[in-house]
């Protein structure tokens, strides 16, 4: 009963740590009329203090390492982290780059990985659904 409420109204904060913006476009496509996630209760919020789910796209770069950690600390308890795209899982196409610091789970504990380059909006919705089940 307690966690059922987060399943019914998850609020999402979107953080791009330095990739190309392909996965970001697919995430924002989820709130367009074709794949409307507002009917499931999700909202894309502007502040990490309001959000339950942190969706991280792109590989970690040297600049965004501490900032991503700070954003993760600013979120209140019962939070989930979703790594979107191949860059989040293994570094993807940017792996041998000059400013890369590796995949996301070097610094933040990641709960769900969504592969794809970029993943489909339906795959993103499926990933968010699995992330919410992990909260229980």
């Amino acid at each position, binding site marked *: 009963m307690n966690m059922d409420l987060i399943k019914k109204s998850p609020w999402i904060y979107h953080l791009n740590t330095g990739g190309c913006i392909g996965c970001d476009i697919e995430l924002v496509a989820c709130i367009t*009329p*074709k*794949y*409307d996630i507002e*009917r*499931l209760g999700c909202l894309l919020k502007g502040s990490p203090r309001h959000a339950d789910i942190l969706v991280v796209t792109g590989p970690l770069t040297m600049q965004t390492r501490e900032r991503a950690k700070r954003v993760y600390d600013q979120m209140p308890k019962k939070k989930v982290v979703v790594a979107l795209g*191949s860059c989040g*899982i*293994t*570094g*993807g*196409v940017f*792996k041998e780059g000059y400013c890369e610091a590796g995949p996301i789970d070097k610094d933040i504990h990641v*709960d*769900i*990985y*969504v*592969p*794809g*380059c970029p*993943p*489909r909006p*339906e*795959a993103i*919705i*499926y*990933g968010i*659904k*699995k992330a919410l089940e*992990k909260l229980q």
Partner: protein
Amino acid sequence: MLLVDVVKSWFSRASTTKYPRVPDKPKNYRGKIEWDDKKCIRCLTCVRVCPSYAVKFNKKALHERGKIEIDHGKCIYCYMCVEKCPVNALIGTKEFELATDDKRELGSA
């Protein structure tokens, strides 16, 4: 006037898909890649052609016959390996629901 269009849209059908309740079957989509053991001739063209080094050849698996392993965490789904395979041993499926909480299920380290 914009207000006329707004009021007209209240009486039209919404253009939203019914995704989580109704499963989605895309017509053309580059999804997960499957490997067929019997057709493969171990020429290793797919290993050479992959732009993100996602296809690997494991010499010691399958009783020393060798297995092609695809790391779906590194794959960018460009399907070069599927196109260049001379015997069509790599098959592209349309499966996109691959989200998981364990990287090893996808074949990553």
